[in-house]
């Protein structure tokens, strides 16, 4: 666990003496670098003049199921975009699957927040999942029998077989997240980058999706997901990184999600009652759209 001493200069000294959970990742980045799926060192980035993330060090090993938590505007989505190669670092170094971000893009599947998807777009469930196969096909080539088999298997896995011909706007919130996870599965990636994959879904969907992500991680895939749901992060994720413009803490979920770390991550948005911490944060109030992004709010399914 890494606490940045510059983060809050008025913190009590005791806080800085917390045991370091991942000394090799934090203090010897070079050692962790060679086999890491995601490796960042001293990374700062943002939009136009606005800094969104500062001095981020992070190493994520293959087979990790990592939750990124933090308040709205803390830079969770920015961190994912950095990993996906959608945003360049201003300072510092980022390596994804051992190379510059974007170099191994076909082995990476990124799922954007639901608000960034135009649900009125004339595509069906089958079309969207097939898009996961597009980058591997290259120009001109049409999807073949293998691609259709992979798409069917992905739809089976997320429980959306039989909905292939449904336009995506007609799906419920949970079904929409299932379909986008199926698209990621169909790409057969080594690294999953999922922005709020279980936000605003019913409990059954959350359990189903987390089962799938767990299974992928067990198979050696790296799964990194942002979430607002601290209970889910604590119970279903193996590791957690808490973010508030910096990585506040990173380590096994049971150790990271203690009131002290949460207080540091969430500041005034945290209510601590005895040994229970409650985040006063609106899960449905997502980050502000960046320049060039438009948000599509989900309407009721028709």
């Amino acid at each position, binding site marked *: 666990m890494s606490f940045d001493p510059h983060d809050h200069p008025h913190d009590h000294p005791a806080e800085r003496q917390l045991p370091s959970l991942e000394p090799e990742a934090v203090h010897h980045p070079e050692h962790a670098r060679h086999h890491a799926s995601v490796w960042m060192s001293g990374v700062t980035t943002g939009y136009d003049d606005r800094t969104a993330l500062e001095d981020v060090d992070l190493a994520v090993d293959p087979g990790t199921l990592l939750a990124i938590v933090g308040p709205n505007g803390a830079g969770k989505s920015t961190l994912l975009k950095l990993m996906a190669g959608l945003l360049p670092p201003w300072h510092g170094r980022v390596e994804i699957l051992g190379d510059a971000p974007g170099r191994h893009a076909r082995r990476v599947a990124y799922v954007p927040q639901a608000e960034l998807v135009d649900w009125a777009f004339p595509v069906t469930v089958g079309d969207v999942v097939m*898009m996961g196969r597009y980058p591997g096909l290259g120009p*001109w080539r049409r999807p073949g029998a293998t691609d259709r088999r992979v798409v069917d298997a992905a739809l089976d896995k997320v429980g959306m077989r039989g909905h292939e011909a449904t336009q995506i706007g007609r799906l419920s919130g949970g079904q929409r997240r299932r379909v986008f996870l199926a698209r990621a599965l169909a790409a057969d990636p080594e690294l999953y980058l999922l922005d709020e994959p279980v936000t605003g879904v019913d409990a059954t969907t959350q359990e189903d999706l987390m089962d799938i992500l767990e299974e992928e991680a067990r198979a050696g895939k790296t799964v990194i997901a942002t979430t607002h749901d601290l209970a889910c992060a604590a119970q279903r994720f193996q590791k957690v990184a808490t973010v508030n413009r910096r990585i506040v803490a990173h380590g096994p979920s049971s150790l990271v999600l203690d009131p002290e770390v949460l207080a540091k991550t969430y500041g005034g948005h945290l209510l601590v009652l005895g040994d229970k911490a409650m985040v006063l944060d609106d899960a449905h109030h997502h980050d502000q759209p960046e320049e060039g992004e438009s948000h599509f709010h989900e309407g009721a399914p028709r």
Partner: protein
Amino acid sequence: MDFVLEPLASAFFVRALLAAALVGLVCAVVGTYVVLKGIAFIGDAISHAAFPGVVAAFIIGVPYYLGAAVAAVGTSLAIGVVTRRARIRTDTAIGVLFAGTFAFGVFLYSTIEGYVADLFSFLFGQLLSTSVEDLVALALLGGLVLATVAILWKELLYATFDPLGAAASGLRVEWLEMLFLALVALTIVISLQAIGIILVVAMLVTPAATAQLLTVRFGRMMATGVVLAIAASITGLYLSYWLDVASGATIVLVQTAFFLAVLVVGPRTGWLARRRTGRSAGPDMTIGRRRT
């Protein structure tokens, strides 16, 4: 039958008919992406930006296609850069470019001694004066646009639907967007003589928008748009012949009539359908996605 057959006896009408159908086809294909990307305004800007190119080509004495293509493709790429790099709102930047380039065209036009009817026809189109050379150029450039879309069909679809997901998975989305803007520019260039600078945006947007009201599948939307566009081109041209009115404007009016008819009685979004089933047409009424 005379209504249909009599005009076909004139070669100029047959050429105009072929040109109108081809322009309708290419515009509907490219327009499907334009509507889904929500960049109708960019199409309008590019078409106006072609005007100084046409005038300059006339002054220098080169084919108007060349001048229009240089100006339109140049502007489309400038828009592509501006929308990515500039720190002002995209629609503001495009509004400035749009008016500035068109004003430059009018300025150039006014420096020419005497009245140049030929140039004026590019503002409103002149289908009935389509020459054989025009048709050949139209077929070649239109074929180029259609072939590019056929090759990059999947990539353009993915990049239009989910640019972030597409870019993260290795598609070169920035490059695809630049290429697409260049395709829009080429489509506009080949439509200028037929429909004219002022109305060409309707050819791009209206058939695709009508098709979006009728179907929820991308491929069917494109096919429906093509059928509607060609039908409007043929109907409009015949109407303009018999009524002796402007052909480009009549075609656009027929397209607009199709759109309004589908809006009112369409099976999915029509007001009648809504009254029958008692449910809202909902987000399907969205014509395109705004990205400003």
